[in-house]
């Protein structure tokens, strides 16, 4: 449940609302049909994001299959933290994986996310090996993964992984858009002290990762 505060004139209204909705695969096709004209004109498709979509692999599988049956381009935006068998089952209906890499160093990965990166990296290798198209996405978080050592670690790893179907590295600058969500959920926001990386800094990082020979973009 989330809390919404809205104003009508001088009066404030506070309401409790359910965040999120239940959809069937059929519902998703209906929504896509509504947006079809835009998807076609922009050569777009559908992206399953989250949270972590592989937390609901059965549904994801059904929805992806439904989308492919209608000819939509499909993408899955994932943290990579799910079982290999889950990835193997969804990959047949997935045209593109947007694959988060937060840290190359396992210890620090564990420290910030609470899990090891071993599974994430082995899934990534498996998908690349199977010829799946991958966009690597790095959330650039000051003092967490943008120190020289972390950066070098990731660069080295990507250079090793480099192959024809590793299409792009996206550098996603940290931002605080999520702060309002924390408030609505009554959760403490712990990133107050972190500052969004400057455009100059992001450009620097782009040039750094250009060294891998893989196409690098700032932002999605």
């Amino acid at each position, binding site marked *: 449940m989330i809390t919404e505060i*809205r104003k*009508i*004139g001088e*009066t404030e*209204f506070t309401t409790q609302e359910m965040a999120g909705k239940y959809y069937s695969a059929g519902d998703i096709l209906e929504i896509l049909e509504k947006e079809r004209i*835009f998807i076609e*004109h*922009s050569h*777009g498709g559908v992206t399953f994001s989250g949270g972590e979509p592989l937390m609901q692999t059965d549904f994801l599988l059904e929805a992806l299959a439904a989308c492919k049956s209608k000819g939509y381009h499909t993408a899955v935006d994932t943290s990579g933290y799910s079982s290999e068998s889950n990835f193997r089952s969804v990959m047949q209906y997935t045209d593109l994986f947007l694959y988060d890499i937060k840290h190359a160093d396992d210890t620090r990965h564990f420290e910030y996310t609470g899990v090891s990166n071993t599974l994430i990296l082995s899934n990534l290798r498996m998908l690349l090996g199977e010829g799946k198209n991958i966009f690597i996405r790095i959330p650039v978080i000051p003092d967490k993964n943008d120190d020289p050592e972390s950066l070098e670690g990731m660069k080295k790893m990507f250079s090793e992984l480099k192959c024809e179907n590793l299409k792009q590295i996206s550098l996603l600058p940290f931002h605080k858009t999520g702060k309002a969500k924390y408030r609505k959920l009554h959760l403490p926001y712990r990133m107050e002290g972190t500052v969004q990386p400057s455009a100059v800094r992001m450009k620097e990082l782009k040039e750094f990762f250009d060294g891998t020979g893989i196409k690098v973009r700032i932002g999605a």
Partner: protein
Amino acid sequence: MMILSERVKKLRTQSLTAEERITAERALLVTRFYKSDEAREVSAPVRRALAFQYILKNKKICINDGELIVGERGPAPKATPTYPEISLHSLHDLEILNSRPKVSFKVDDEVRAIYRDEIIPFWKGRSNRDRIMGLMTPEWINAYNAGIFTEFQEQRAPGHTVLGYKMFRTGFTQLKEEIKESLSKLDFFNDREAFEKSEELKAMDIACDAIIMYAGRHAEELERMASSEKDGKRRAELEEMARICRKVPGEAPETVHEMLQHYWFIHLGVITELNPWDSFNPGRLDQHLYPVYKKEKEEGTLTDEKLYDLLGCFWVKFNNHPSPPKIGVTASESSTYTDFCLINLGGVKPDGTDAVNEMSYILLDVIKEMRILQPSSMVQISKKSPDRFIHKALDIIRTGFGQPSCFNTDAIIQELLRQGKSIVDARNGGASGCVETGAFGTESYWLTGYFNLVKILELTLNNGFDRRTGVQTGLKTGFASDFKSFDDLTGAFAKQVRYFADIKIRGNNVISKTFENYLPVPFLSLLLEDCILNGKDYNCGGTRYNTTYIQGVGLGSITDILTSIRYNVYDKRRITWDELNRALDSDFVGYDDLRYDLIYNTPKYGNDDDYADQQAVAVFEIFYDAINGRPASRGGVHRINMLPTTSHVYFGSVTGATADGRKAFTPLSEGISPSQGVDSHGPTSVIKSASKIDHLRTGGTLLNQKFSPQFFEDEDSYKCLTALIRSYFSLDGHHIQFNVVNAETLRDAQKHPELHRDLIVRVAGYSDYFNDLGEDLQNEIILRTEHENI
């Protein structure tokens, strides 16, 4: 890439800083002519032609320092004339114009004295406005006072006409030959109108002589100036300009310079003869200029520097000419004063192939660098237009200047074909004013008034009684609580719409005749095919195509109101009519909870929700059925379009609280855009909702979407916006405009207007300086949803 020359920079600054003021020059000349014996003994068209000639013969010739294109309507830039034969300003009106804070027109003592001593005594009770008001029925007057509709022709002559390709290739001596031929073919044995036609043709011939004479007066002045000019370079320019003014508009233009000057004399002729509504403009300027430009380029007689200088000088001319100031209710309905010269770029050629050419890109450069309100500009985007053309337009749109707007050529062509235009005439068409579809050079398409759909619904809920004016204005179709079902309500609404459409159309058919009989326009008639051929005036159905429009206003608002009633009263039974009426009567004071539900928990138009959008379609069909195809007295039929200019503010100010949660007397939604701030599902949903009505059966619709500047930051965003535009157009959307600005900037501009004098926003189909808008309109623009993501 264009760089403004010192010359153009200087002229541009002069134009931006020139003081708007009223000149009595034209009023005085037209009055003196009307008092003369000459005026008394002749037919109406000849009288008007002689008046036109008299003005052009006696008005001051103004040539500004450094300019390359000459001619001013008044004695100086932004000195704006009045048209007492159309509507007469009282001394009080002049005082209001002089002293009001927004867009004032200075009125000096001399003008006041001339008005007091000469103009008012002669025209009092004799202007066409007086004539019109005397001819209207009590039902018309009641509806007009209630704010059901406005009347375009009460203060301006009929308009909406754009110059076509013929006049860019023809001179007036050629037209005189055509007149001679038409006269020789008159059949005095069988044609009962032969005499009227001969008078009209005589009048046209006088108008040809008048405009050639007027150009000649400029040539004389230029020659005089050249003879005393010390600077050799300027002397050569003045001599060249004199040569051109001896040639055009009598002869057909053969260079870019000649063509621009040729057009400008025509433009001045049209806006001096009378003050026709808005829109007169060169239309498809890239198409007209391209052949002469190409020829000169090949011959090596035109440098880029010279080209941009000429175009810059030409642009300034439009900005020097504010629209004539209004009086009374029309002044509050539209408080901004730009004339709507909408340059069309792109589109398709007469053979249907892509028309985007080198000149289209050059003119986009000019628009970007000049960055002035007038002329306004638009891009016609067809299926065949290259993405590069759209990207170039977005490059200008992103600067937050509200131009150019984006139009769907394929829709425009289908709209025109449906109305019976030939395929070639349709392809030569475009949009003028705000968004109005027309066949350029061949059609007179009159806008006659905005039509307040929301107010009619308000009366429908109140047995036709208008509580604001205290007058039984509509039919007695019952009170809200009498309607047992939602269908009963929409049935009653349809009857009221038909009733008021009848009143409006009857009025139109009478008003049209006043212009036909008292105020023909022989000069304007020369410019439009087939007036010469038919021997008939523009105001008398002489053009190849004649269309009369009534403009529906408040589609977003009325959809939300009907949807709310259907949802809350009939379907969900959340409230009774009694409760809702009490809340509306008290303007929601003490009903915050209900108002919250009406705003946040009720389906709204603009979110691709069929539950709401089907009311939009129903209202559209009711409005369409009441008006489309009904005969107009000058020939042709009535049609609808959906645009508000700024009337949604005026119409809101006469309409009480509404069931969508809108407070009393606040603005209605504009065009076919959703109500302010209710579209919460992004621009794609807005587009889906907006395309559920059948644009192809209108003569134009207006959809405004506001984006903050970041949407234009990289190439990907251009691709997204291009896809958005093409998607809307593939759904037959007629027009979309992107307003690029953020709310913070606008709020700051309200607080510190002095720091934001250059801030231009798209109001509703046209652009204006934010500072020049009334506070309510400013607030409304701030309220409009800023889409966070695309």
